[in-house]
């Protein structure tokens, strides 16, 4: 059965929508395979607008890997904006892929990448537009397997009703393995329908099928236990870890969009994982251990990627890029190679303690010396101990002073508000810090032309972190502290004008908190919000706190739980958490101990450079730390 392109029908709608180019596909390096020659067909979705979703590395990597398999094909689909959604509904055009404009429902797998929980309502829009029943249990053999991946999939419980399956961790190998299971099952004539397929996937131990698990509750609302409801289903599902990044040098051929996107550059992951151990950071906890890509592979990937794409900027991506054991050589090697070619280099996340000015100079050598970003996260020394972000005030002042004296004029500082044990004074400490930064900058440069921007967001406790037990701060307190901080900054005659202040109000964090640590009962809230028109919750112009609260009140009324129960309630040690059966390798006792250490201001070191402190990941997952230095250098390119 061949599948027809929806493009002619879509094309008639495009003159009526904003930025139609985002829906037409045809990106450089995109792939359209013959439908009938493939056995296993994936539609990969990033559940946000094209401009955010297209640059996503996770999707690009899986897209390329799957399309390299002979009998497998992958196309991409993104969330459509409400203007097109309305037209698609009235004209009966279903959710489509941008590659060949095929209907999403015709694929075998709809793989959705969740880097944030705020994409959940967009998943429902896509399913509904595709004609796929929202509830997994209502789907038939004609519907694709709806599979979630990405960081938010480490607690997929709030969307468990809508998912057939979820995968934790790195996707490269498991996506291939899933394709293989589907190919075999189809080859046998698809025995037993989708349930048998799901069973085969679940029995590998690496794919979580929510409907094969029952959740039982205590009368007070807490979870009693989560147990498989049929034999052959493992009681725990484990995350996946790619062990040799040099063997997986993707993306090789980055997608180059015609439409403007949030990230206009070629990004190379220089390592995965991070063991700095910042206690709020889910990404750091769930991606352990650190696995570096070697300097030579990085160099080769940059060279090939630039040639394939024509991008003029390279991003060296990771959770803490300055921590790569050969970052200096990488930066210098690349800056030398591309000297005079107008190719910029950028480093997304820099830690104050890993920063050094030579490195920053290399990064700005072929480009602009625009701004530097640091994330001390906590405003006071005590707060930084609680979150294990080991940066002293002296470190910070010294670092920014050097930056100012080397010609940078603008420094951005990132903080969080609402951290565990936080008091007003911890947040007000940010104002003092910012003033000291400007003072030091003026002294170092002898000029008043130095600026600093304080950017502050609400803290949301995340699953699989030491703060998974913590009470989230209520939004009234967060908003009050943010206001006081603003007054402290603005009111200052000497420094106020030199300090910019960017903040978000506390309400969205409460919704994020509900979704992050929610269980299956939260699914009905998501659905109610969606039915009420909730879309694009990551966009402030679309997000409505009131809509979420009204829906939650309706859904939870008369029950044992409510929004506060999920967010501002502290959990005790032995409470069964919704994600306890999903294993990121972290030892629960170690996490609890780290939580206890946090509230007593005790810090923990980085296991890359100090002895293993038994977080549990490496023995559980059979992994090890992989870091350099390799001692190799990048050779100059021969100019043709």
């Amino acid at each position, binding site marked *: 059965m061949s599948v027809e392109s929806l493009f002619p029908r879509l094309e008639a709608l495009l003159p009526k929508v904003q930025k139609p180019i985002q829906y037409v596909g045809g990106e450089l390096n995109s792939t359209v395979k013959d439908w009938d020659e493939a056995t296993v067909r994936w539609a990969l979705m990033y559940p946000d607008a094209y401009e955010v979703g297209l640059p996503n590395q996770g999707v690009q990597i899986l897209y390329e890997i799957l399309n390299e398999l002979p009998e497998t094909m992958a196309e991409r689909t993104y969330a459509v904006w409400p203007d097109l959604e309305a037209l698609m509904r009235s004209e009966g055009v279903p959710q489509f892929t941008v590659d060949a404009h095929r209907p999403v429902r015709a694929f075998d797998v709809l793989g959705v990448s969740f880097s944030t929980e705020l994409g959940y309502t967009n998943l429902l829009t896509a399913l509904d537009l595709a004609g796929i029943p929202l509830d997994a249990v209502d789907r038939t053999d004609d519907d694709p397997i709806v599979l979630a991946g990405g960081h938010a999939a480490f607690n997929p419980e709030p969307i468990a009703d809508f998912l057939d399956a979820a995968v934790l961790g790195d996707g490269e190998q498991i996506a291939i393995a899933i394709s293989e299971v589907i190919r075999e099952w189809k080859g046998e004539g698809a025995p037993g329908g989708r349930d048998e397929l799901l069973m085969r996937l679940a029995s590998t131990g690496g794919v979580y099928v929510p409907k094969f698990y029952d959740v039982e509750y205590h009368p007070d609302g807490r979870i009693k236990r989560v147990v498989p409801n049929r034999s052959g289903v493992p009681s725990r599902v484990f995350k996946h870890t790619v062990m040799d990044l040099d063997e997986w040098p993707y993306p090789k051929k980055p997608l180059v969009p015609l439409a403007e996107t949030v990230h206009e550059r070629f990004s190379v992951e220089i390592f995965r994982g991070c063991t700095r151990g910042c206690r709020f950071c889910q990404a750091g906890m769930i991606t352990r251990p650190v696995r570096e890509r070697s300097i030579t592979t990085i160099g080769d990937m940059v060279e090939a990627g630039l040639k394939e*794409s024509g991008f003029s900027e390279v991003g060296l991506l990771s959770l803490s890029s300055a921590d790569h054991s050969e970052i200096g050589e990488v930066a210098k090697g690349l800056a030398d190679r591309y000297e005079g070619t107008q190719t910029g280099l950028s480093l997304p996340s820099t830690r104050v303690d890993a920063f050094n000015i030579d490195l920053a100079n290399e990064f700005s050598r072929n480009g602009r010396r625009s701004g530097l970003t640091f994330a001390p996260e906590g405003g006071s020394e005590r707060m930084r101990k609680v979150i294990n972000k080991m940066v002293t005030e002296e470190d910070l002042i010294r670092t920014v002073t050097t930056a100012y004296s080397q010609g940078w004029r603008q420094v951005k500082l990132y903080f969080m508000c609402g951290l565990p044990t936080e008091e007003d004074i911890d947040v007000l400490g940010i104002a003092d810090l910012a003033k000291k930064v400007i003072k030091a900058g003026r002294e170092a440069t002898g000029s008043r032309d130095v600026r600093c921007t304080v950017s502050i967001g609400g803290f949301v406790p995340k699953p699989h972190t030491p703060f998974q037990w913590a009470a989230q701060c209520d939004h009234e307190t967060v908003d009050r502290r943010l206001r006081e901080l603003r007054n402290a900054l603005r009111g200052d005659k000497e420094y106020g004008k030199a300090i910019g202040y960017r903040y978000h109000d506390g309400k969205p964090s409460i919704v994020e908190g509900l979704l992050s640590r929610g269980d299956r009962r939260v699914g009905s809230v998501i659905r109610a919000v969606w039915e009420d028109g909730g879309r694009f919750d990551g966009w402030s112009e679309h997000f409505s706190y009131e809509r979420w609260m009204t829906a939650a009140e309706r859904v939870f009324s008369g029950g044992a739980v409510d929004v506060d129960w999920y967010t501002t309630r502290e959990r005790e040690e032995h409470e069964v958490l919704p994600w306890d059966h999903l294993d990121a390798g972290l030892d629960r006792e170690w996490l609890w101990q780290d939580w206890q250490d946090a509230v007593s201001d005790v810090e923990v070191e980085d296991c890359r450079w100090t002895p293993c402190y038994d977080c549990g990941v490496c023995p559980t997952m059979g992994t090890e730390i992989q870091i350099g230095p390799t001692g190799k250098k990048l050779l100059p390119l021969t100019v043709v």
Partner: protein
Amino acid sequence: MVQRLRVRYAKRGRLRFTSHRDISRAVERAVRRAGIPVAFSAGFSPHPKISYAGAAPTGVASEAEYLEIGVSRPCDPDRIRADLDVSLPPGLDVLEVIEARAGSLADRLEASVWQLRLPGADVAAAEQAVKEFEAADRVEVERLTKKGMRRFDARQAVRSMAVMDDRERTAGQEPGPPCVILRMVVRHETPAVRPDDVLMGLRLVAGFAPPSPPEVTRLAQGPLDATTGEPADPFDVERADGDL
């Protein structure tokens, strides 16, 4: 910069939905991929010397778009045409590259030939509307611009306009559903009068309203030839005999 290259390219099919900014990003990347030695402006944030002349609006296809690239080494225009064409996505097609002579390219682009396909529209109604439009002295239309709603005359810029029945053109076959083709020569003025402004004018003067959005293509642009009333090839200057 040692040489300026003038490029005529087409914007076809689904790529007609690219905006002017989309095209400039695509061209910059294609230039890098093709290894064209583009010159850069001096200064704090150098940018490639590529300039665009009067780009067709988003959603409008074109057979005659123009841009100019400054290069830092002398290049063979034919080779640049081929290299740039393979480096651009299909649908942005490089048709001709020529070494620039004196004068500004943008100044030569005085008028455009537009073709509007109007599927489902009635030929007789279209002819009547064109007649009434041409008989009018001024036809005030409105368009939402960045500065808010603007009113301007759409009549004076239209040099000529003709109606064709698309069905007659497929000889020997069953006539398809009705489809009108409007061909018009429009002078470039400020504010620019675009094909949809003219369509709105037709609706205002004669109530002519095609049932579905028009498919618009720019067929040509260039200096307006007083005798033919049509735009001439803007590269005629470059093509003329004599030393560069």
